[in-house]
């Protein structure tokens, strides 16, 4: 997921999650979500940006009018939810397809 985001941006998260769910590995959506959340949290820790992240987060949170903690949590949470919803959708569709087969 981290690599995908690095190369293609945010929309790679649901795409990779969907592929992951469809792959023979067949991880549970919650696992995929956790991995995506961790991947984005990891990407946030870019060593070049890390010293300035707190300052930036504080200012962005103030601009958006939300608490800093909410903004910080929002990043991995958004990735996790994206991944979960895509994985869960694929899992549900696969179940339906298998039953029909």
């Amino acid at each position, binding site marked *: 997921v981290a690599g995908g*985001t*690095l190369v293609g*941006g*945010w*929309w790679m998260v*649901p795409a990779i999650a969907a592929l992951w769910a469809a792959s023979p590995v067949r991880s549970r*959506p919650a696992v995929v979500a956790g991995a995506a959340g961790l991947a*984005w949290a990891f*990407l*946030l820790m*870019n060593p*070049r*940006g*890390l*010293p*300035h*992240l707190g*300052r*930036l987060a504080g*200012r*962005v*949170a*103030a*601009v*958006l*009018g939300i608490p800093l903690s909410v903004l910080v949590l*929002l*990043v991995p949470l*958004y990735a996790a*939810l*994206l991944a*979960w*919803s*895509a*994985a*869960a*959708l694929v*899992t*549900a*569709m696969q*179940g*339906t397809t298998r*039953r029909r087969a």
Partner: protein
Amino acid sequence: MRRRALLGTVAALALAALVAPSVIRIGQLPLVGPFLDPVQGVWALAAGAEPPGRERLDMSGLSGVVEVLVDDRGVPHAFAATEEDAYRVMGWLVARDRLFQLELTTRAGQGTLTELLGSAALEADRETRHLGLAWSAERELAGWDTASVGYRAVVAYAQGVNAYIDGLRTRDLPLEYRLLGRRPRRWHPVYSGYLFARMGLTLAANDPAESRLAVSALVGAEAADALVPVNSPIQEPIQPSSREAPRDDFRRLPPPGAPDTVAAEVASREPRVESDDGSHAEALGSNNWAVAPGRAKDGHALLAGDPHLELTLPSIWYEAHVVVPGRLDVAGVSLPGSPGIVIGFNRDLAWTFTNTGGDVSDLYLETVDDSEVPSRYLLDGEWRPLALRLEEYRDPDGRLLATDTVRFTHRGPLTRRGERWVSRRWTVLEPSRESDLFLRAPRTRTAEQWLDVMRDYVAPTQNGLVADRLGTIAIRASGWYPIRPGDGRGDVIRDGSTRGSDWTGVLPVEKYPFAKSPAQGRLASANQQPVDPLDNPAYLGADWPPPWRALRINALLRADSAVTVGAMRRYQTDPGSARADAFVGFFLEAVEVPNRETEGRKDGKTETGAVRAAALLREWDRKYDPENRRAILFELAMAELDRRTWDELIPPGKERPRYVPSSATLLELLHDSTSIWWDDRRTSDAVETRDLILIASLGAALDTALARYGDPPGDGWTWSRVRTANIHHVLGLPGLSRLRLAVTGGPSTLSPLGGRGTFGASWRMVVELGPEVRAWATYPGGQSGNPASPRYDDRIRGWTRGNLDRVLFPRIPADLPPDRVRARMTFVPGA
């Protein structure tokens, strides 16, 4: 089966809910996915907060390699082989640090803010276009000699900005563009013209004719002449006077007369007062002063400058150092969007400006063929066609929001005022080459040469102060001063139907207010009337700002015969106030000295309050330190005094006066204790005199202070709790602003702090012109426009304390101490 279907439905809905706001903008929210993306989204700004330690960049158009070292203050030192290369790289650097500001400020001058911000900016754009700012900038560029240094520089600068924009990666997109969901537009050389036009509006928008019309409409022309005077009642001129200075020229104000009906028809409906205490006008100004070697402790000329402008984040200024061996070695500040160093120094001299505030704008009452949709205007008995310019206002998606037709006479833009049509001629709209001058001036080696270059300066009028290593100090109030027919006054509206009303020329440079190395060994300007009318009666303007800052700085310099760099710095944030010195005594005397006029007529309650207030005011040291606990009482008393004195200037049905005369005029009136102006017409059963108004003002001020700030022994009266500097982000976003900053200063102190605290010292600089030029400076902000950068606002702390940083001024890259270098960039000629 059912559970799986339910899961599928919930997942599909969740996915849609998460993806939709990432591809479709909802309200003011940024696109969620792209915004939160840790690689390309807003977080990427953290990685770009500091420039990479070493970079090699290809740039097309360069004729040679340009080395740039960025020091630990974020200041780039650019070493180039040609000036065009230097300005090309300057464009790139400014775009990297201030890209959004570049676009916003130039769109403000162009009147196309709606294309960035949407319909909310429509009225601001309309006003700009009706003033003809964009029309003027475009006309100017079209007529520019393409071989001139100025033209080549703005073209090179544009290429540099575009080189940055073309190479801009999504991850480097400034925060503001992300919030607005926009991308930067490419740069055109004319944008530098829009910037200067906008600056002209800021510095030369005040037309005394407007003030005089507003006053005439209420109390007649004779009273207007006294309340909006051509000559300041207190003379402390920039050009040292042949008479004693300061010189009071107080006269008896004529009584209010019958309203002038023509003035009432065409007077602007906009209020001329911008804050409750009228202090905005007194905070929008600047200081500069210079000391000759004979009065400096170390025997070198000293120069100080601090232009007072709107305080914004990012700052209005961008600091830079440009070296082109054998041609140019200049450091100082530029306006983002223009290549030249506007205020700064080179190896031989330093210069700075204050606004002169000359009257460079005139109104003409026109006769048109159709009062609704005019197409012609009458001139010397003939109908002449109006030039028409169709203005289209578009939103960020290119959709048409509105259209306007702006009309022009041969004088300038035509606007409707009630049933009348008024045209305006304004030097800011005349073809000029300010960019050219700001590029040529830094090449000069002596004050004489600098003054020679600035002979061609047009608008807005500026007090250019220069000092050189030879010990020369000089000042000239430069710019075009129109010569008008008849009595020559520009503070009246003229008949537009005849060419006989037109300007007949401009004042020759030799007639500008000027001084060079005067015997007094010092020069100072602070927006006051530049020359004593007894020395030079030529009409240069009217409605001059009161000279409180000029009085204060001259008093400080007069008392110091061995001025040091440290003293120059301290003076810039001196807490004393000549205005307080002038007024406090009147309040105290009115309350404490019995006299015939107040005897038996004071209201008991008011008197008790005033006596207590006077006792508190007497404790005041007349200074505006952040910890001061009496300044607020004086300010409230002054606001009350204005409110109670100028009731005649409140239009019927309104609550606030349309215009408040300057505090210098108020002081003039205070010397006439029985003037009819003291009577408050709103109290029909009594006739007030000066001392009754002073007593009532002081008593009311105390009531207000107690109600708002509690008892005086508490902290509520602390100056820094009631008046603070407020540095707003250019879009007004509170999260990116620095608000409620405790600073030294009040209305009319050398570092002024007006009502809302949004104007002030935008750049403070002290230069010592010794064998090696040394400089100290700062501004309230930081070099970077990136809020993740420590250099977004790193200078604010020092600025609030009145500290200056030593400016690094290396001759060659190797001269810059390695521990002060934060980044090295090498620009090489590319494809």
